[in-house]
C-alpha cells in the first residue's frame, strides 16, 4: 500500500502518513501511577503473585476493576498452610475474575478428594480462552490409576503452551483439536492408549515437544506426527524404562532442528523423516550390558549417518567404542560437514580409540571439543600421539574442554597429546574433580603450562569445584 499522502512539503521528514498516525503527537509522560493506562497497570499486576494482585482490589474503584482481569492466575497449594485456605482462595479468585482472556493458568496441587473440583477449575481456565496451561497434579495413591482431565483442554483453540506433570495414567480423548498448540511438555505422565496419545503429538502447530520420565511401556511404535516440529526432547533417568526398550520412534516433521534423547539405549529402529534439517542432536544413552556389541555398533552407525548434517552433537562415547573392530563401518564413516561442536558424555573417552579418531578426521570444521566425563590416553606407549593428526586439529579446532579431570597419568598424557597436536587452539579448559589431589601433588597449572604446545596462542584455564561452568547444566 504505497503512495497515499506520503509526499510531504517538508522534505527532511520522510515519514509516511501511516507512521504519523502511529506516533500521534502527544508527549507521553506522567507523574503518578494512576496516570498510566489500564493495559500497563495490568502488566504491573501480572508481575505480582495472584494473591498480591487481587489484594489491590481494595485500593480504589479503578483497581478493583483492573484486578478482576489480571492476565495470569497462579495457584500453588504449597503457599497455604491449610487445604481449606487453598480451596477458598482458588474458588474465590475464579469467581472474582471476569471472563476476559487468560494468558496463563498455573495450578500445582494435591488432588485428594476426587477430580471434580480440580477439573472445574481447569474448565474455568479453558472457558477464559487460556493460552498457557501449567498443571502439576499430585494424585493420591489409593485412587484409581487413571486421571481424566476435562475434555475441554483437548479442544482449547487458544492453547499455545501446555505443561502437564502428573504421576498418573492419562487418558487422551479421541477428539483432539489444538490448532494453536506450540509447546507441549509432559513429565511423569503415563500413556496407555497409543492412538490417542499420538493425536496429541500430531498437533499442526506443535513446535516443541518434551517427554520427561513418561511411561509408555506398551507402545511399540511412537509416531510423532507434528508436521512443524522444531525441537524434540526425550529424557529418562537411569534405570527407568519409560519407553519400551524396543519402541520405535518415528519423527514425521521435516523441519526438526533439535533432537535430544537421554535415556536407555533403545532397541527400536528410529526414523527421522528429514534428518538434514537437524542442527543439533544430543544422544546420551545408558548402555544395557547384555546387548551384542555388533548390533549396537550397527545401530549407532545408523544414527550417526542420520546426524551427519548437524552443527552440534553430543554423543555417548560407548557408542563409538563399539565400532572399533568394525572396519566396514569405519571405512564408510559419514563426513560431518557442518559439525562445529562435538561433546562426549556419560563416560570417559579414550583418545587412542580408533573410532574416535576416525570421527575426528571426518569432522573437518570442528571448532569445539568437549569431554564432559574426562579424557584418557591408554595406549601404554611412551610418547604416543595422534597419527595422523585429524584435519580439524590443523585448521579449525579452537577450543577443548575436559571436565571431571582427576589428574591421573593417563589423563595428563591425553592432555599432552592434544596440546601437542592442535595447531590453532585458542582455549584449553580443564575442570578438575575434587579428587585430583589424590593423584597429583604440586602445581597442576605449572605442569600443564610446561607441556609443548602446537598452537602459540593457546590459553589454558583450570577450574576447581563442584560444578563445571561449561557443561554442568547442559546434560
Amino acid at each position: 500500500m504505497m503512495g497515499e499522502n506520503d509526499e510531504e512539503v517538508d522534505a527532511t521528514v520522510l515519514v509516511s502518513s501511516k507512521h504519523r498516525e502511529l506516533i500521534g503527537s502527544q508527549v507521553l509522560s506522567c507523574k503518578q501511577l494512576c496516570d498510566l493506562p489500564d493495559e500497563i497497570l495490568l502488566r504491573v499486576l501480572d508481575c505480582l503473585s495472584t494473591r498480591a494482585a487481587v489484594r489491590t482490589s481494595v485500593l480504589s474503584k479503578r483497581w478493583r476493576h483492573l484486578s478482576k482481569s489480571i492476565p495470569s492466575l497462579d495457584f500453588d497449594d504449597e503457599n497455604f498452610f491449610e487445604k481449606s485456605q487453598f480451596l477458598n482462595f482458588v474458588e474465590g479468585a475464579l469467581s472474582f475474575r471476569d471472563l476476559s482472556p487468560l494468558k496463563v493458568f498455573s495450578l500445582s496441587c494435591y488432588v485428594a478428594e476426587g477430580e471434580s473440583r480440580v477439573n472445574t477449575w481447569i474448565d474455568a481456565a479453558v472457558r477464559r480462552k487460556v493460552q498457557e496451561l501449567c498443571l502439576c497434579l499430585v494424585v493420591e495413591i489409593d485412587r484409581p490409576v487413571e486421571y481424566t482431565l476435562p475434555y475441554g483442554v483437548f479442544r482449547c483453540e487458544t492453547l499455545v503452551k501446555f505443561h502437564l506433570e502428573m504421576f498418573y495414567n492419562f487418558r487422551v480423548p479421541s477428539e483432539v483439536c489444538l490448532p494453536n498448540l506450540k509447546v507441549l511438555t509432559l513429565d511423569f505422565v503415563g500413556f496407555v492408549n497409543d492412538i490417542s496419545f499420538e493425536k496429541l503429538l500430531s498437533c499442526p502447530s506443535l513446535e516443541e515437544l518434551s517427554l520427561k520420565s513418561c511411561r509408555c511401556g506398551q507402545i511399540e511404535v511412537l509416531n510423532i506426527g507434528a508436521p512443524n516440529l522444531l525441537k524434540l526432547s526425550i529424557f529418562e533417568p537411569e534405570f527407568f524404562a519409560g519407553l519400551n526398550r524396543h519402541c520405535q520412534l518415528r519423527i514425521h516433521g521435516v523441519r526438526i532442528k533439535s533432537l535430544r534423547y537421554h535415556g536407555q539405549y533403545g532397541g527400536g529402529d528410529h526414523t527421522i523423516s528429514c534428518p538434514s534439517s537437524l542442527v543439533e542432536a544430543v544422544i546420551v544413552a545408558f548402555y544395557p550390558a547384555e546387548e551384542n556389541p555388533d548390533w549396537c555398533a550397527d545401530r549407532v552407525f545408523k544414527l550417526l549417518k542420520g546426524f551427519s548434517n548437524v552443527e552440534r552433537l553430543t554423543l555417548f562415547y560407548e557408542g563409538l567404542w563399539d565400532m572399533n573392530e568394525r572396519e566396514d563401518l569405519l571405512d564408510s564413516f559419514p563426513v560431518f560437514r557442518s559439525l562445529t561442536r562435538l561433546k562426549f558424555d556419560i563416560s570417559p573417552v579414550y583418545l587412542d580409540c580408533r573410532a574416535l579418531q576416525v570421527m575426528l578426521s571426518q569432522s573437518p570444521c570442528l571448532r569445539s571439543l568437549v569431554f564432559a566425563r574426562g579424557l584418557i590416553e591408554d595406549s601404554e606407549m611412551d610418547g604416543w600421539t595422534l597419527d595422523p593428526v585429524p584435519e580439524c586439529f590443523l585448521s579449525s579446532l579452537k577450543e577443548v574442554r575436559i571436565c571431571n579431570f582427576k589428574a591421573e597419568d593417563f589423563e595428563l598424557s591425553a592432555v599432552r597429546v592434544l596440546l601437542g597436536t592442535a595447531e590453532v587452539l585458542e582455549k584449553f579448559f580443564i575442570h578438575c574433580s575434587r579428587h585430583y589431589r589424590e593423584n597429583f601433588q604440586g602445581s597442576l597449572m605449572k605442569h600443564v603450562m610446561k607441556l609443548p604446545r602446537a598452537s602459540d596462542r593457546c590459553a589454558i584455564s583450570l577450574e576447581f569445584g563442584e560444578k563445571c561452568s561449561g557443561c554442568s547444566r547442559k546434560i
Partner: protein
Amino acid sequence: MSSSPPPSSAAASPSCPKKMIALRSSDGETFEIEEAAALQSKTLENMIDEDCAGTPIPLPNVTGKILAKVVEFCSKHAEPGVDDESLRAWDAEFVNVEQATVFDYILAANFLEIPTLLNLTCNVVADMIRGKTPDEIRKFFNIKSIFSPEEEEEVRRENHWAFE
C-alpha cells in the same frame, strides 16, 4: 549519545548503507543509535525498514531527557559479551530513579515496544507494591480512593479469601 562506529559488514544492504539511526525527540534534540540497538524497539524496527534515507526519525511523544536514557538502555543491551550478572546490576542502577521517571520509561518502552525495558520497569513498580498494605500502597502512589468506608468494607468482604 553516539557509540563508536560499528565495523563494516559485508551484509549491509545497498539501500541502507548507514548503520547509525538518528532519532529526534519532542523537544528537537537528536540522538544517534546503532542499528543493532535500535532493533530492540519493534516500533523502530518497522520504521527503519521503511525509511532508509538516514534522516532523523521524529518521535514527538518522547522528550529528549527520556529518549537519551532509552537510547542508553538499548545500546547497553545490544553490547556483545556482557554477562548476565553485570547486565542485571546495570539494569538495577538504571531504574534506580524517582517514581515519575520510571513511569516515563514505562510509557516510552510501551510506545517503542521494547520488551526488555517494559518488563524491567513494570517489575520495578510491582516491587514497590509488593509487601505493602493497601494503605501504604495508596500513600506511596498517591492513589485517591473514592470508596466510602462502607464500600471498602464490602470489597474487603468480597475478597476476604485473598486476605486470609
